[in-house]
C-alpha cells in the first residue's frame, strides 16, 4: 500500500481499477518530400477533420459544463485557423520541403515556446492549448481516431496531465475519477472536472507516474487529495462504505437529470433555481435547472463598503448570462432595507422596517442608485437571455415610474451607441396582498409575475417572519395566500403574462399539485431542490 498526496479539485471518492491514459505516440519524423503539394493538401484535410472534432467536443462541453467553460474549444478552433500559425506551417513545408506533420510539430513548439516565455502564468498555461491543437492535427493526419474508451468497466484514469479536450472527450460513463501527476488547479481541465462532477486529483508528482500500472486497485479521495495505491482490506472497506453513502445520495440525481418536468398526464412546468451569488451557478447547472428564476442582486451591495459601480455589476451580470446561455436568467433588482442593510446606504432607523423604506421604495427614492443597476443590466442583456424583476410592488404608479426610468436608461444608452437586447422580459414580484388584489391591472403592463411567498405570507397573515413565538399562527398553507396566488395566476394568463413562484413555498412538494392545477408556469427553488420538485411533478396526475 502506497499513499500519494496531491490536490483534490473535486470532492468525491472513487475506489476501483486504474487505467493509465497514454497518448498515441505522436512521435513525428522529419521526412524530406519532393512534391510539397500533397503535404499541403494533407494539412488542409487534417485541419478540417480537427475542426470537425472540436465542434463535437464543443457541443458535448456545452451540454455538460455550460457555455462559458465550453468556449475554450471555440478558441481552439480559431487557433487552428490562425493566420500566423498557418503561415508558419505552410512556409516550412514549402521552404524546407518537409512533411506536413513535422512542420506542425515544429510550429507547435515555437508557438508554445512563445507562450511559455511570457511573464504571466495564465499565458504560460496557453502553451498547452497550442500543443493540444497541434497534436490533434497530427493525429488526424495519421488517421488515428479518437477512441479512448477501451475499458468495459469504470476506471480511475491516471495521466501525466490532461488537456481540456481530452478531459471532455473521456466517456463519462467509464470514468470514476481522474488523477494526474501535473496540472494546476486553475487549469481549464480542473475547471472542467469540477463542472463534470468527476472526482479529480492533480499534482501527484513524477514518482506516482512510475509506480502506477493498468489494472491496479486504487482509492482516489478528492476531498483530501490523496491517492492510495494497492490499499489493504481495511482501507478498502472504509472507502467502499463512504462511497456507498455518496452514491445513494446521487442516485436520485442521476435518475432525474435530463428528464422533463412533466406530469403523468402530460402537463409541463418550468423548474428554475434561486441563487444569491455568482458562485452558485455551478450548482444550478449540476442540478439541471431550466434557468435562474431568482438572482438576488443584493450580495453585490451587501459585500461592499461602498456602492458597487456600473462596471462591477455589469461584469457579474454578464458572467451569469454567459454561463447560463441560452437559458433564462431573471435578475431581481436591489432588495435591501428591512433585515438586509449596508451601512453606506445611511438609512434611518425604522420602527417597522418590514413596512418601511425597502426594495423598490428605496430604489424609487434614490433613482441615481437604481439607474446604475439598470444600466449595468441593460448592457449585460446582449450576452444571454435576461429577465429583470422588481420587488415589493404595491401599485400601478410604481410600475409606471420604474418603466419611465428604464426608458431613460435606454435613451442614454442609445445616445452613447451602447448595445442592449430588445427582448428583455420585465416582470414584477407579487409579494404584497395589494399587488395580488390588483393583479388584473398590473398584468397587462408586464411580461411576467413572480410570487415571493415569504413576504406574501408575512404581509397577508400579519406575521413577523423573524419572530419564532408566532410560528403557530403563521400557516404558510393558509387559504388566503393560496387564493391570492390563484387570483394572480388567472389575471396573468388572461393578459398574456406568465407566472412563477420563487419563494420557499415553491419547493414545498405537498403543494406542487395545487400549483400545477392553478396553472403556475414556473417554480424557482434552491438548486438542491430542483430534482426533488421534478420528482414530485413527474408523480403528479392531474387527470385524477
Amino acid at each position: 500500500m502506497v499513499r500519494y498526496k496531491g490536490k483534490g479539485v473535486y470532492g468525491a471518492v472513487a475506489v476501483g481499477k486504474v487505467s493509465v491514459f497514454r497518448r498515441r505516440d505522436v512521435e513525428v519524423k522529419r521526412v524530406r518530400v519532393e512534391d510539397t503539394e500533397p503535404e499541403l493538401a494533407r494539412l488542409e484535410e487534417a485541419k478540417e477533420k480537427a475542426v470537425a472534432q472540436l465542434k463535437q467536443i464543443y457541443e458535448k462541453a456545452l451540454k455538460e459544463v455550460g457555455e462559458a467553460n465550453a468556449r475554450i474549444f471555440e478558441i481552439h478552433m480559431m487557433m487552428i485557423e490562425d493566420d500566423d500559425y498557418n503561415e508558419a506551417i505552410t512556409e516550412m513545408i514549402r521552404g524546407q520541403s518537409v512533411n506536413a506533420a513535422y512542420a506542425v510539430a515544429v510550429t507547435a513548439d515555437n508557438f508554445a515556446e512563445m507562450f511559455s516565455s511570457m511573464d504571466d502564468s495564465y499565458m504560460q498555461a496557453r502553451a498547452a492549448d497550442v500543443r493540444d491543437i497541434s497534436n490533434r492535427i497530427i493525429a488526424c493526419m495519421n488517421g488515428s481516431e479518437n477512441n479512448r474508451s477501451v475499458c468495459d468497466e469504470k476506471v480511475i484514469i491516471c495521466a501525466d496531465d490532461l488537456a481540456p479536450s481530452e478531459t471532455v472527450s473521456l466517456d463519462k460513463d467509464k470514468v470514476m475519477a481522474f488523477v494526474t501527476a501535473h496540472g494546476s488547479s486553475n487549469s481549464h481541465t480542473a475547471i472542467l472536472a469540477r463542472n463534470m462532477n468527476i472526482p479529480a486529483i492533480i499534482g501527484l508528482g513524477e514518482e506516482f507516474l512510475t509506480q502506477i500500472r493498468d489494472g491496479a486497485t486504487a482509492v482516489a479521495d478528492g476531498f483530501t487529495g490523496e491517492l492510495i495505491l494497492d490499499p489493504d482490506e481495511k482501507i478498502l472497506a472504509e472507502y467502499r462504505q463512504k462511497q456507498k453513502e455518496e452514491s445513494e445520495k446521487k442516485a436520485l440525481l442521476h435518475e432525474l437529470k435530463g428528464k422533463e418536468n412533466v406530469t403523468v398526464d402530460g402537463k409541463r412546468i418550468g423548474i428554475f433555481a434561486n441563487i444569491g451569488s455568482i458562485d452558485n451557478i455551478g450548482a444550478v447547472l449540476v442540478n439541471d435547472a431550466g434557468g435562474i428564476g431568482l438572482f438576488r442582486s443584493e450580495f453585490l451591495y451587501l459585500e461592499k463598503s461602498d456602492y458597487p459601480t456600473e462596471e462591477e455589476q455589469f461584469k457579474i451580470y454578464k458572467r451569469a448570462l454567459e454561463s447560463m446561455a441560452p437559458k433564462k436568467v431573471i435578475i431581481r433588482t436591489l432588495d435591501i432595507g428591512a433585515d438586509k442593510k449596508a451601512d453606506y446606504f445611511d438609512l434611518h432607523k425604522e420602527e417597522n422596517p418590514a413596512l418601511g423604506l425597502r426594495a423598490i421604495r428605496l430604489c424609487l427614492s434614490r433613482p441615481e442608485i437604481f439607474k446604475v443597476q439598470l444600466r449595468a443590466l441593460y448592457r449585460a442583456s446582449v450576452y444571454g437571455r435576461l429577465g429583470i424583476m422588481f420587488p415589493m410592488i404595491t401599485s400601478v404608479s410604481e410600475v409606471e415610474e420604474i418603466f419611465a426610468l428604464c426608458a431613460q436608461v435606454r435613451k442614454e444608452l442609445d445616445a452613447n451607441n451602447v448595445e442592449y437586447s430588445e427582448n428583455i422580459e420585465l416582470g414584477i414580484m407579487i409579494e404584497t396582498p395589494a399587488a395580488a388584489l390588483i393583479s388584473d391591472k398590473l398584468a397587462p403592463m408586464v411580461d411576467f409575475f413572480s410570487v415571493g411567498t415569504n413576504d406574501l405570507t408575512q404581509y397577508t397573515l400579519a406575521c413577523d417572519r423573524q419572530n419564532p413565538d408566532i410560528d403557530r399562527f403563521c400557516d404558510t398553507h393558509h387559504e388566503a395566500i393560496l387564493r391570492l396566488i390563484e387570483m394572480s395566476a388567472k389575471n396573468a394568463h388572461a393578459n398574456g403574462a406568465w407566472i412563477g413562484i420563487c419563494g420557499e413555498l415553491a419547493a414545498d412538494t405537498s403543494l406542487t399539485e395545487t400549483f400545477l392545477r392553478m396553472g403556475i408556469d414556473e417554480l424557482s427553488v434552491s438548486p438542491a431542490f430542483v430534482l426533488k420538485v421534478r420528482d414530485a411533478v413527474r408523480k403528479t396526475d392531474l387527470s385524477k
Partner: protein
Amino acid sequence: MITFDYTIRDELGIHARPAGMLAKIAKSFDSDITITKGEKTVGAAKLMALMGLGVKCGDTITVTVNGGNEDAAAEGIKSFLENNL
C-alpha cells in the same frame, strides 16, 4: 486612417476568450486593423499574436484602422473593448 487609445480595465487583460472574440470581430470588417502595445504591433484578426502581446489590466493599447469602412470598424472595435475589456 483612424487611431485611438484604449486602457484595459479587465483584471485578466486580453486573455484567451476576449482575444478570440476580438479577432472574430476584427475579421468581420474589411479594414486592416492593428493593435499596438509598446513597440509591438500585431494584426487584430490574429488570435495567437494578439495573445502573444500579453496585454494586462492597466496597459494602454493603440488601435489603428486602415482602409475599408474605417468609421464602422473603429466604432465596432471601440464598443467591443468598452464592453469586454
